[in-house]
């Protein structure tokens, strides 16, 4: 736990994150795994950039179009698609792991199976359209959340709500109408996922009359606070150039 005065951001950011996680879903999900208090969670969320931001800083395709405005628009669209891809990777791996581990039963298991397949389809589509510009799949560590049904449901609520807010935040920034149409098609499905898991978690499926869009930095900070995305330092290094010392 870092001291308050070590952090990059002040109380304003904490307030923002408190608003973002209005249901306490993410904070409580994390608490159940890490034993962190809500204050700890919010403080950790304020700690600076890591692997996630590094991944999102991946360069977009070099612009070939002569029109600089068009080129900038294309770059921005591809950057938004990569941001969407990162969130889809996260959700796809989250559901897939829970399904593989057979953590859930009955309706929760069905929800994870169906939604996981949707998220994997989103990943496939976004990777297809981004081609060589697509960011690589990060390594994830769900810290046991996918192995505890209640923690899984609470965190799934937070991830789906975040996903909806993230797509809504980027929609107006998409320059290409055909990309926007595709993004809207995904957004509405994410909203259905959110209401499905909210119902299973005992929450009101549609809690408010208006979904607040969320800007990328806020979404990224909240995702970072989960520690689900492994930093490069924590990624497994399984090969080496050392000489073998096996029995021969």
């Amino acid at each position, binding site marked *: 736990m870092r001291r308050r005065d070590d952090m990059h951001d002040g109380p304003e950011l904490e307030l923002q994150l408190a608003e973002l996680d209005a249901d306490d879903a993410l904070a409580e999900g994390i608490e159940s795994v890490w034993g962190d208090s809500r204050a700890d969670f919010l403080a950790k969320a304020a700690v600076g950039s890591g692997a996630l931001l590094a991944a999102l800083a991946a360069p977009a395709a070099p612009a070939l179009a002569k029109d600089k405005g068009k080129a900038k628009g294309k770059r921005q669209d591809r950057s938004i698609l990569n941001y969407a891809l990162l969130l889809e990777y996260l959700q796809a791996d989250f559901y897939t792991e829970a399904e*593989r581990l057979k953590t859930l039963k009955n309706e929760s298991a069905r929800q994870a199976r169906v939604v996981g397949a949707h998220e994997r389809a989103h990943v496939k589509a976004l990777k297809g359209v981004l081609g060589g510009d697509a960011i690589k799949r990060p390594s994830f560590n769900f810290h046991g959340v996918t192995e505890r049904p209640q923690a899984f449901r609470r965190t799934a609520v937070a991830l789906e709500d975040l996903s909806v807010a993230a797509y809504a935040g980027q929609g107006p920034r998409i320059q290409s109408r055909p990309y926007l149409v595709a993004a809207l098609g*995904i957004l509405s499905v994410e909203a259905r996922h959110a209401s499905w898991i909210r119902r299973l978690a005992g929450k009101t499926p549609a809690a408010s009359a208006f979904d607040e869009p969320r800007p990328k930095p806020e979404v990224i900070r909240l995702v970072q606070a989960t520690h689900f995305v492994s930093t490069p330092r924590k990624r497994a290094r399984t090969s080496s150039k050392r*000489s073998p010392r096996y*029995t021969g």
Partner: protein
Amino acid sequence: MAALVALGLTSCSSSSSPSSSDEPARPTLPAGPKAAFQIPAPQPLGRTGTTRWASVDRRVGARATPGGELVAGLSPRTPEQTTNLVVVLGRAREFGGELWVRVRLPVLPNNSTGWVPRRALGGYHVVDTHLVIDRHRLTAVLFKGKRRVFSTRVGIGRAQSPTPPGRFYIRVKLTSYRSPFYGPLAFGTSARSAVLTDWPAGGFVGIHGTNEPGLLPGRVSHGCVRMENGAILRLGRLMPVGTPLTIE
């Protein structure tokens, strides 16, 4: 919304009956742009078996039961200074407010397993490969799912330094070293010689190439599995670290 409904109704009625010449022309909504990409049909997870492995993130004791007697220590590093990893068996269990998982251990006696706190491990990785060494037929066969994707003849341990039987896993891949004796590539396994216990680095059994292909197949080694250099290079392309290994 009422206007849209009225427009829709008007559109329906105008398509089902010819419009009267004295009616004013009514505006129609143009078709929107098509999506830039399609979302593929969601696919269920494959039914083939997968194996989970995880990195050892911190020094930890493996126990006979969750919270029980200590059976072995696990370090975050292998003797080759790569990330140590363990294959995870079965489902996690709650004990003392903590998640525990059973893992296969790279210790003597071979085939040992133990329970470690989930929080000592990194994220799960999955593989769908399985290597089987047959000591009677002197073969190595790699399966991907149920499909046999590689096979070759091998050299194994002599009678006085046998290749140990049991269930193990591949935990490191070594390349680009300069040691013709081991060929161009070597895999480190979790298996250990029960005889050469004072061998440098602990007497781990490797799977590697050779500078004496004429000796293969046969019972020629100190416990390691040797194969021709072309075969080990092919295996290097097909077999990821974390692959379970059965020596029978």
